[in-house]
């Protein structure tokens, strides 16, 4: 486990030494503060649109951080050839995958904490209320989603050598699932065969990332999701993350790194 944590530490160091996070955080903060400063009909109590905009920016920023950071891990190690001195040490490829995953996941988790703290301060100062449980649930579910996304990107990065292609494909897949994931069975019914069967099959086997989007509960003050459902969703995310990491390891295990 120490080897995995050592790899994790390097990934986290890389994230906070690069400028990506700071740029995205400043952008989110500036846009949120600008949106919050607008006066609509001289009503100071209007707050939901600020929450909505801030959460949307947090979602975009965290996805960008997770996908871009993860997509470059293995390809950059191969391109810069840092993978060779690393694998010449007593570390297995499975440990490399696990370390990279954990590093990216913890790094985005730390970024999420900063983002949500900012969110809580801004909206709390306007609303004078802090529904901590709802915020925690939203952040937790988002972090779980990012775990699946990171595992997916890590898998993609084994097969697509260029970080840009891995990032683009991952963005398309994740955004598509978030937008149409819960409607695919309805879309399937409107399609002729064999597309109907194919889409129905995809609907049942794909990771349902849309479950992890709890922004509406925060924006509309709609309380929180029952704890048991959150636990079930956590298990679902863990299973999917495990599946994707296993596939990534299977791909990486026998990969010839010299070509």
């Amino acid at each position: 486990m120490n080897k995995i944590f050592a790899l994790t530490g390097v990934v986290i160091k890389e994230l906070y030494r690069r400028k990506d996070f700071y740029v995205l955080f400043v952008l989110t903060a500036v846009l949120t503060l600008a949106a919050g400063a607008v006066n609509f009909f001289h009503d100071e109590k209007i707050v939901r649109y600020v929450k909505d905009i801030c959460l949307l920016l947090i979602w975009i920023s965290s996805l960008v951080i997770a996908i871009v950071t993860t997509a470059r891990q293995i390809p950059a190690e191969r391109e810069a050839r840092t993978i060779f001195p690393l694998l010449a040490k007593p570390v297995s490829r499975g440990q490399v995958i696990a370390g990279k995953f954990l590093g990216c996941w913890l790094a985005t988790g730390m970024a999420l904490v900063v983002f949500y703290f900012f969110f809580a301060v801004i909206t709390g100062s306007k609303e004078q209320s802090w529904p901590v449980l709802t915020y925690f649930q939203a952040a937790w579910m988002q972090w779980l989603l990012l775990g699946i996304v990171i595992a997916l990107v890590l898998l993609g990065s084994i097969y697509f050598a260029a970080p840009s292609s891995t990032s683009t494909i991952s963005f398309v897949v994740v955004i598509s699932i978030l937008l149409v994931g819960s409607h695919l069975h309805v879309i399937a019914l409107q399609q002729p065969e064999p597309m109907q069967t194919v889409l129905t099959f995809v609907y049942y086997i794909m990771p349902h990332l849309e479950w992890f989007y709890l922004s509406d509960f925060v924006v509309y003050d709609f309380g929180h999701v029952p704890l048991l459902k959150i636990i079930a969703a956590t298990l679902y995310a863990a299973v999917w993350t495990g599946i994707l990491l296993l596939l990534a390891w299977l791909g990486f295990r026998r990969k010839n790194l010299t070509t």
Partner: protein
Amino acid sequence: MSAILQTQKLRVEYRTRELRQPVKIALTGLDLEVRAGEVFGFLGPNGAGKTTTMNVLLGFVPPTSGAASLFGIDVRQPIARQRIGYLPEMTYYYKFLSAEELLRFYAKIFGLARAEADRRIDQLLKLVELESARKRPIKSYSKGMQQRVGLAQALLNNPDLLILDEPTSGLDPLGRMKVREIIQRLKNEGKTVFFSSHELGEVETICDRVAIVHQGDLKAVGTVAEISAGHPNLEQAFLKIVGFQSAHAS
């Protein structure tokens, strides 16, 4: 003396991605044995299979058939690399880390205790004369400094076997001297050194035994004296073995 590094009928084939391209055979069935405490030179022209052999030994490339082991452990087991140090031909390290952070990271991979890691890092940074730059990110280092970081990381775990891939290529004369000194010192400490090189003069001076590979096949193995027998020097012997007919020779 027991064999520390061993390959048996090692065969490696590369399949190209292009359709209808023939499979490239990098090693045809290499049998190699490096004994404890010796400095072993691994020679061959470009494309002979030296790098492929090293890649198999380090676990970067899986063998198509045959076996390779370090300290009697199959190279596919990560633990086989616990007691080795590896210095690549070029330096490839995380540029956003400082030399100290890089060595600390590798120390954790080797499972060194904190106190032991601190002691080794101080000692090695002193040895490679990077003490004053230990906190600076590697991206700010000159090429020579980066090579020295490479040397430090290769020695971090006090390895019993050092695998060096063209260790002096790209170094200035002072750097070469330093590397030779280190190899000699390791030999004196009873360590085993396995290295590939194109510098035959260098090989001649420091190696106990030499192997020459050509077209994926082992052509000769023995002491420098054995291989050079009947030739003016190792270089002439090497050229004859790999089938090079110079105008002068003919």
